[in-house]
């Protein structure tokens, strides 16, 4: 038997045949030919071009989901981030998938903006090797109304470097949001993970049950107020030494 049709093509080909008309494919124009003949391996980002690209995408996104659904937008790295009304969560997904060409589900996940507690609890003595995070609650790109947010990224398999990250705020008292399962079936597991890790409830999900953790598990491990026991049951060995760190005058002691 012979192998069936093969579609392999050189990297410099263009994919216009795949991209539908309403989708511009900025990624194509940027990297493939122009950068290929540069000597240096460092690819610089053209900020101006990217923001035009983002502005265009944002305009089309707003056109599809309605201006009152979009609260704030920003750029994270090279990605457009849009914070939308939680009520528009599913309709935005639907618009992304059917109108904007985002056929690919990246992930659905949650964020807890509560400041990271010090490792070993706030009353732990001295510092630990864990990084010290700022103590006040600040929000990232596109802001947030409160502690909990759900964020999701969708991309495209048809257009190069084309993706969007959506964020929606959840109420701390009742973190409910509609499920994406009906739009992107792959959201199933992501939402289950998000539910067990953050306690967000995805309305309309067929079966919200534990994915990673045993089903009798209590608590939501990825919330910032859930302690990381590994860092609490054992004292930090870096503290054992009560002597001061060797000063400058000690340096010759080593040789």
């Amino acid at each position: 038997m012979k192998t069936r049709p093969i579609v392999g093509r050189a990297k410099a080909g263009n994919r216009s045949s795949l991209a539908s008309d309403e989708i511009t494919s900025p990624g194509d124009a940027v990297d493939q030919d122009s950068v290929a003949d540069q000597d240096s391996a460092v690819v610089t980002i053209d900020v101006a071009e990217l923001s035009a690209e983002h502005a265009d995408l944002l305009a089309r996104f707003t056109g599809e989901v309605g201006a009152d659904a979009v609260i704030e937008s920003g750029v994270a790295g090279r990605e457009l981030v849009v914070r939308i009304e939680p009520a528009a969560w599913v309709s935005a997904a639907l618009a992304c998938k059917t109108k904007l060409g985002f056929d690919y589900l990246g992930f659905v996940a949650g964020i807890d903006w509560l400041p990271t507690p010090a490792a070993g609890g706030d009353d732990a003595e001295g510092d630990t090797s864990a990084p010290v995070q700022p103590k006040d609650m600040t929000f990232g790109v596109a802001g947030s109304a409160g502690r909990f947010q759900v964020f999701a990224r969708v991309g495209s398999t048809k257009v190069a470097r084309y993706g969007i990250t959506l964020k929606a705020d959840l109420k701390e008292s009742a973190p409910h949001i509609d499920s994406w399962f009906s739009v992107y079936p792959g959201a199933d597991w992501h939402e289950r993970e998000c539910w067990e890790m953050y306690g967000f409830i995805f309305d309309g999900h067929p079966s919200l049950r534990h994915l990673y953790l045993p089903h009798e598990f209590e608590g939501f491990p990825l919330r910032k107020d859930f302690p990381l026991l590994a860092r609490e049951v054992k004292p930090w060995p870096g503290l054992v030494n009560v002597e001061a760190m060797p000063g400058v005058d000690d340096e010759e002691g080593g040789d």
Partner: protein
Amino acid sequence: MASFRNSIQGMQKGLGVTLKTMLKPAVTVHYPHEKEEVTARARGVIALQEENCTVCMLCARSCPDWCIYIEGHKEKRPARREGGRERTVSVLDRFDIDYALCMYCGICVEVCPFDALHWSPEYEYSEFSIASLLHDMEKLGEWEATVPEIEPLELGAEVKKAKK
């Protein structure tokens, strides 16, 4: 019938590969009898050069697994030169690495500012109980003999590497 012939052909091919491989030298090593040669860079076990260590605790502080335990104290030493100042020297009392926890990341070796820790490619130190995987100062010092020389680098590498 055709599929039967196909299957025979498939089998013949498989046996052909077997035959060809049989005639080649073995790629496996009969381990306890023959030792495998490991590359010089391999991260096998950490060796401690006790004299170099100044008990600065940097390694213990940056270890992601918290598996280095260090204790030390300061001692006064007479001055080296006539009329010089008395020196204070940090002396190690305890330096343990728990290999049951260590994940061989090499961060401790990299952060040590006094070149007291080195990687050795030695790998034969398995134990019957987890507790005996805790290597103390003496044992870590013994590994020092197995630390290989620094190898030369590949063509095109930057040559200003003489800082250590």
